[in-house]
């Protein structure tokens, strides 16, 4: 059974059919790329997968469980985490706290216990603190723990966003243009990070990217989206050599 499957997914905005008959199948542990020209509908698909938009057609299945129509929070709990095209960190909070927010649902205690500093608060906070620090270490961010997130260098901000997403213990990680705004060195480091995340956490990753070096460097399979519809799907090299795909990107 595929980890993620969509069947005939579609949505319209006003009169525009933004996504149509979208089928994808991502196996567990895969590094899967979603590419296509600007405005093709890639982020829209991410928004559909995470419940930000509700599809007017089709289904989304995670490990066979139907997630169609569910709210973002429930989809997160079901195991889909994401990062955003424009990095969305909790800017005024510390790096450590950003990760702790990601841990929120896995380390519960009540507001009452928090205000009155009851034993459960102390115990769970300690565990949360340890776990958050571990995650930062894993991503090489531990020295930034007390920085305000908005003061981090750009490349580290992206790593933090991924770390925070991983804190939610997802089954599937969606990365929306993770290399956006990065120079070649930062992109190389990012590629290492993504590979590392897949290995370390046994993660399945679906990413949107324009940077072809990154795409051909780490993605095993690709889906090409054009005008909201699938243009080509398959192994990376086959897809990239497909003449229709080349035309879509470069024009004829």
């Amino acid at each position, binding site marked *: 059974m595929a980890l993620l499957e969509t069947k005939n997914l579609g949505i319209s905005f006003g009169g525009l059919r933004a996504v149509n008959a979208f089928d994808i199948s991502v196996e567990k542990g895969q590094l899967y790329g979603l590419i296509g020209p600007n405005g093709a509908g890639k982020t829209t698909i991410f928004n559909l997968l*995470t419940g*930000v938009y509700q599809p007017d057609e089709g289904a989304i299945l995670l490990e066979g469980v139907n997630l169609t129509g569910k709210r*973002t*929070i429930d989809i*997160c*709990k079901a195991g889909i*985490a*994401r990062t*955003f095209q424009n990095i*969305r*960190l*909790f*800017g*005024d*909070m*510390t790096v*450590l*706290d*950003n990760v*702790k*927010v*990601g841990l*929120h*649902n896995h*380390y*519960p*205690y009540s*507001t009452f216990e*928090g*205000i*009155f*500093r009851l034993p459960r*608060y102390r115990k*769970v*906070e*300690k565990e*949360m*603190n*340890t776990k958050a*620090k571990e995650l930062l270490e894993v991503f090489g961010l531990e020295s930034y*723990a*007390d*920085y*305000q997130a908005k*003061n*981090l*260098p750009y490349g580290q901000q992206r790593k933090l966003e991924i770390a*925070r*997403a991983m*804190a*939610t213990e997802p089954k599937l990680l969606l990365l929306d243009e993770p290399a956006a705004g990065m120079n070649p060195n930062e992109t190389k480091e990012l590629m290492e990070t993504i590979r590392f995340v897949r290995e370390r956490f046994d993660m399945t990753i679906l990413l949107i990217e324009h940077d072809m070096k990154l795409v051909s460097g780490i993605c095993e399979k690709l889906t090409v989206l054009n005008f909201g519809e699938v243009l080509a799907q398959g192994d990376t090299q086959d897809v990239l050599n497909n003449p229709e795909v080349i035309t879509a990107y470069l024009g004829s």
Partner: protein
Amino acid sequence: MEMKINKTKISKTTKNDLITYGMVILVYIVVQLLVSTGHVSSLVQGLLVPFCTYVIVAVALNLTVGILGELSLGHAGFMCVGAFASAVFSLAFKESIPGGLRFFLALLIGAAAAAVVGFLVGIPVLRLRGDYLAIVTLAFGEIIKNIINALYLGVDSNGIHFSMKDALSLHMEEDGLMLIKGAQGVTGTPNDSNFTVGVLLILITLFVVLNFIHSRTGRAVMSIRDNRIAAESVGINVTKYKLVAFTLSASLAGVAGVLYAHNLSTLNALPKNFGYNMSILILVFVVLGGIGNIRGSIIAAVLLTLLPEVLRGLSDYRMLIYSIVLITMMIFNWSPNAVFFRKRLKQTLTSGRKA
């Protein structure tokens, strides 16, 4: 090594909080000393409880504005609810329950009433966009004030009577007690408030707010403030946490209202004490003290209430000066050009140091 780092991290925020508590206690001790040695004018003595009231409501508002990140222009309305609910209770049970216990119960009732109203207001309001949210809270504040002004409440051997028209419609017995007399408000509330009580309430408010902030719930609320969409994407229930913060904030404003009500023999819901002008005044305290800065709210509330009384000559100009400082502060802190300028300055001076 790990354990050592953990310990230092936790005590850093606790240390900060302890400074705030210590500051309040220190001021209390100093003031009491000055009062007992006769160094404090009766004018300032009369201001001691109002100081505490303003501090509590400013901290409460900062919870909404600075931590939740939403602008409320109606917090005077929550003060009003707390004030009247507790005053009615205290008046009704003036003879039957001893002072200390009665005031404690009045506090609970005022806080609870304000919390309920805060919750009910929050449900529709917190969905709205920033500036609409602000105006709607203003609207609710005015509605609350107006309704209480039109309220007639009395109790007699037959039970509780209530009317929105006038006192006569209550049809009360001879032995009945008028609790709320429409625009004339509540008369005869026992004078349970004093400086010590006020400071105790400040400390309790601080305890609640500071612990709230440094907990999982506080982090969730701040994450919503910083980036609602990202918060949702990591599984934070935005509606729930917005409501929790707002309700708590309203409840604490209600506590301030209880303190206020038990300092006066007559309680009226006037535009000047429970109208939007009061809400705006508290907002000025919060902004000038630093949005999100709890200690700043305390200092601002006291200074901005004390200064005009002490510097009589400037009293006429005080609101003018506050407004100019407010505008200037906002522009320097929030203007995109100013933010950019400060970031560049920081970068050239330091190269990405600690927060």
